[in-house]
């Protein structure tokens, strides 16, 4: 987790939940190597590409449930509980059972992504099941690096409409992902 201590994770998520997009990017970026480390240490044999899919699924879950963190409590127990729940789920859907103790997580070594990153991830498959407009919004922000304003210009929608569509799209994404698991 680099130099980011617990205090800064709390600060980042707190600011993020108040609408600070940069803090939120910082928070998700800071937890990702940890998620990757957990996925790889439990999923040795699944391959790094599958582990990266699991990381993305877990990030999506953290995103959907970020309102359930209480600001007066530390982030890590909350985060680990989500990770455990989601990673067990993700492995189960791939025919693997993992046993996971939250206490182990503290010793997990953070991992950096491979250079030859997945060209087409699981998440891309799920995104392609969204309606065209939502998929376009999700991709242009992620892949093309567009801002909400850029997308609004490109698609001729108001910024509010883009925000609503993005939010609904991501919510749908986790629903679709659920169905793929079942």
């Amino acid at each position, binding site marked *: 987790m680099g130099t980011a201590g617990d205090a800064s994770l709390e600060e980042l998520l707190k600011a993020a939940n108040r609408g600070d997009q940069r803090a939120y990017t910082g928070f998700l970026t800071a937890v990702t190597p940890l998620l990757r480390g957990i996925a790889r240490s439990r999923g040795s044999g699944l391959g790094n590409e599958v582990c990266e899919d699991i*990381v993305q699924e877990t990030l999506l879950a953290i995103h959907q449930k970020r309102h359930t963190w209480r600001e007066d409590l530390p982030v890590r127990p909350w985060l680990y509980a989500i990770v455990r729940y989601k990673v067990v789920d993700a492995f189960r859907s791939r025919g693997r059972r993992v046993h996971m103790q939250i206490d182990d997580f503290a010793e997990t070594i953070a991992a950096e992504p491979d250079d030859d990153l997945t060209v087409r991830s699981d998440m891309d498959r799920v995104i392609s099941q969204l309606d065209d407009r939502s998929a376009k919004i999700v991709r242009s922000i992620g892949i093309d690096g567009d801002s909400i304003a850029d997308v609004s210009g490109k698609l001729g929608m108001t910024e509010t409409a883009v925000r609503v569509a993005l939010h609904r799209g*991501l919510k749908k994404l986790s629903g679709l992902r659920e169905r793929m698991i079942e």
Partner: protein
Amino acid sequence: MNTEQFIQTLSADSQMEQRVDRSLVIALVVSGLITGGLFLALFGIRPDIGTAITRPDVLLKQVFPWVVALAGLRIVVRLSRPGAKAGAWIWPLLAVPVAILLAIGQEMMLISPELWARTAMGHSAMICLSTIPLLALPIAAVCFWVLRDGAATRPALCGAFAGLMSGGAAAAMYAFFCTDDSPMFFGIWYVAGIGIVTLAGAVAGKKFLKW
């Protein structure tokens, strides 16, 4: 899409769901009052409520479901958050069966054994056993709907406590109508009614509170 790109997409979404605790309180109070109010408007509050409630047994019958509902609510709220344990509200909840057992023990000393069975059956056992789950159903439905926005990492357990809470609220309302006041009666039938809702809640939680 690689992970870094995916993070960009996630962080562009600034809309966040509502906190579950407040919505759950509102859901419970509103659905409880509407369901209970409707039931009592149709079937009536027992006429002697003012004098009956001064008797300790009746007071216990009226009060314990509120304790179950309130403690259940606090526990459900906690269980809807990842990483939180049930917490200290489990204690007032455990005090409920202790109080009921004490009241039953006292009653058994006062009533001769051949009357125990009849006392336990009262005159409305089946009405009680069916009405509490029926009243709890709409309450639980509304609360589960709210709880889907939570993130219970033990969905069955969270569902069970949601059932317990709804059953408690239903019993609290039903008690205003019911004139079977023996601790043996409500110790069996109220508890069984709430228990049915709790079990149903566990099953429903496993199915509907997954995320």
